[in-house]
């Protein structure tokens, strides 16, 4: 066959096939629009039932409609609803849902074929603590390939007081699509309740800098001053990310004993570390190191200059007075930074 005719025939076939595909999709859209309307009605019914539990208590037939609570949309609707209520009302809602075996249903939905349903179910189970929830979520974490669902599972475990093992959490960091920032809340929870496990893991030989930085930052959430020595030792580390993470941890702890070690970091060669040191010192030492901090108004990096000015302002009147006196500093860079910072922070007009 002539190849030019073949080109024509292939083009006709592809154009025709795409049009048929499109027409099919248009027909499916018509069906889907109706289905969406039905789903929206069901969503409204679930919301109505939850509202009745809280504010009406009438219509037990609606509240106790077992079929309604079996819908795969319940976790998603529940999460939206529960975010709006607190205290006794939230407890009443959850008790009544447990009475209707909604938590059992959520645990079953962890095996649903659709990821979005599994995701919502594991997040919703954070409100239904207990051994069976812990077991189901553990199994989900072990079996799922989706990193975001595993992390959501770990967050749920922390919420219900069934803490995941530190090595399991840290293993997430080495997997593709791991989010250190999302894991930080899990690690902070572990620092509060499983501090010893965290410290043991930190001593392991061969752990990566990323792992160490995450752990050191999490130690700050422990509210346990026994970790001060560990954090201060990390300030001597070669890697700036480790030093900065240790300073973040120290800032959270805000213990005055750490102030001299933190102040030494104001002269660090890395500007990220200097900026973190200013923040940590502001939390730990109040006005005590104000003159050292004001010296950084002439730092070559503008962010450090700004952190320094911000810290002085946050110290209250004495710090602000120091900043104002710096506007008359013979060093042009210091006086300019001080006046710009004061103007930016809304305390004085900019120097001409």
């Amino acid at each position, binding site marked *: 066959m*002539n190849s*030019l*005719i073949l*080109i*024509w025939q*292939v*083009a*006709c076939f*592809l*154009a025709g*096939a*795409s*049009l048929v*595909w*499109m*027409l099919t*999709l*248009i027909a499916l*859209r*018509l069906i*889907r*629009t109706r289905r969406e309307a039905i789903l929206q009605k069901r969503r409204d019914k679930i919301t109505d039932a939850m509202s009745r539990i809280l504010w009406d208590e009438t219509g037990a037939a609606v509240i106790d409609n077992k079929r309604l609570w079996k819908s795969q949309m319940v976790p*998603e609707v529940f*999460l*939206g609803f529960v*975010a709006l209520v607190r205290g006794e009302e939230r407890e009443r809602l959850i008790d009544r849902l447990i009475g209707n075996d909604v938590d059992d249903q959520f645990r079953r939905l962890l095996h649903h074929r*659709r*990821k*979005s349903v599994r*995701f*919502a179910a594991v*997040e919703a189970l954070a409100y239904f603590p207990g051994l069976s929830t812990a077991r189901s979520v553990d199994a989900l974490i072990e079996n799922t390939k989706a*990193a*975001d669902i595993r992390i*959501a599972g770990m967050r749920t475990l922390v919420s219900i007081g069934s803490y995941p093992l530190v090595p399991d959490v840290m293993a997430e960091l080495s997997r*593709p*699509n*791991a*989010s*250190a*920032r*999302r894991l*930080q*809340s899990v690690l902070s929870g572990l620092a509060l309740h499983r501090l010893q496990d965290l410290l043991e893991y930190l001593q392991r030989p061969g752990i990566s800098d990323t792992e160490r930085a995450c752990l050191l930052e999490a130690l700050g959430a422990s509210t346990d001053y026994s970790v001060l020595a560990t954090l201060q030792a990390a300030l001597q580390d070669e890697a700036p990310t480790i030093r900065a993470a240790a300073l973040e941890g120290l800032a959270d702890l805000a213990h005055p004993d750490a102030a001299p070690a933190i102040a030494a970091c104001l002269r660090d060669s890395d500007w990220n570390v200097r900026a973190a040191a200013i923040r940590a010192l502001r939390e730990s030492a109040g006005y005590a190191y104000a003159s050292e901090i004001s010296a950084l108004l002439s730092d070559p*990096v*503008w*962010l450090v*200059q*700004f952190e320094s*000015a911000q810290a002085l302002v946050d110290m209250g009147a004495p710090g602000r007075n120091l900043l104002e006196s710096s506007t008359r500093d013979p060093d042009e860079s210091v006086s300019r*930074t001080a*006046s*710009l*910072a004061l*103007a*930016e922070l*809304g305390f004085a007009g*900019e120097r001409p």
Partner: protein
Amino acid sequence: MMDVILTVSKFIGLMVIVTGVVQYTNYFTQLVLATIQLMSSGKAARPDALWRRYSDTVPPIAILVPAFNEEKTIVESLSSLMAMQYPNYEVVIINDGSSDGTLDVLIKAFGLKKTSRLYSPLAPHEPIRAIYRSPHQKRIVVIDKANGGKSDALNAGINVSRAPLFCCVDADSVLEPDALLRTVKPFMEDPERTVAVGGTVRIANGSIIRNGQILKVQLPKKLLPLLQTVEYLRAFLMTRLAWSQLNTVLIISGAFGLFRRDAVLQVGGYSLGTVGEDMELVVKLHRDLRERKQDYRIKFIPEPVCWTEAPETLEVLRNQRTRWQRGTLETFERHGKMAFNPRYGLVGVIGFGNILISDVIGPVVDAIGYILFPILAITGTLPLDYFLAYVAVTSGFGLAISVGSLALEEAQLRRVPKASDLALLTGICILENLGYRQLNSLWRIRGGLQYLQKSQSWGVMTRKGFTSY
């Protein structure tokens, strides 16, 4: 003599057809790659779920909005940006020496007061005249500077902003409230390697917009924006999604993109004196990161949406398209050493190969076809098989690609409001082959000629303003 002319004409015609087949093989490959990518990414999460999952851990973002003579749309744009669902962001408007009342309307609408701000001039730009902030809206920063062009304005914004990520947004665009939460996801999942992420830009003409918010999505009522709706679908859903899979995205639209500030400053910010600054920056990032042998990702994700006003007159559209073509050719020339150079991996082979086929050779060959084939047909010297093959490459394959992109959108994203709109857009896919596509090729030739004359003009871009729809 006649035989020689006929033989030469047939040879040239054959070249036109072969080039067309190569172009469309390229497009069909993109369509397949985009389909795989969309099917593997699954259904997008609802906005409330995104907020629940990410709001406590997302990094701060600075939204940079360069504005030049945008007095009609700037207040609405800023209002829309103030309503973003994102926990930690600031909006930096850069008034690039506007000669209209852009700065005045901003001062009046948001009660701006002159202030100062510490920053380092790391990327080059024209002098900043003043910085303004709103006492009531702490997120707003307005920079008033001497005119220097879009790149220059963005550089000023990058310098003055403080967040580790910045998002460039056109002043005539409207971001969906959850757009930042969706766009930041790759930075959350792969923070070390991700340096830039682009989202989808869609046509806002016809939709109901009030106070910078999209109230009701509707298709444009006029033909020209409708044709562009199909074109944008093809460009974003097919081409960028496909190249994203291979980490060879060469353009993140200047209307909406999220970048890592330190990576952009590493390459000196936006290059000045270019009309295709968005593409040039992305290519520059690829080049720098490849030369430094860094593992990195530049991604496109289809879910976050930015709505933009499309030109409604042929003259404005022509100016836009010729400018785009000049920008592409300029970047191709400036970074020509990357083309087919193994040092730059797939970016050099696929990215630059695609520009060569679609933007350098393509318009010239198309134009030859538009002139040659009608002459041959009129003189009755065109064999039928040549004619049919030519129709196939100018219309048949094009129709399949456009409808395929629309089908992909419907199968995975479903953002076209109604079934009747889908039917209308399918009709537009057919219609665009009857004149619009040809017109576009001619504009690109014009852009090529302007590029050769080294023209730096942006042309006139008139705005109606969203409220007038």
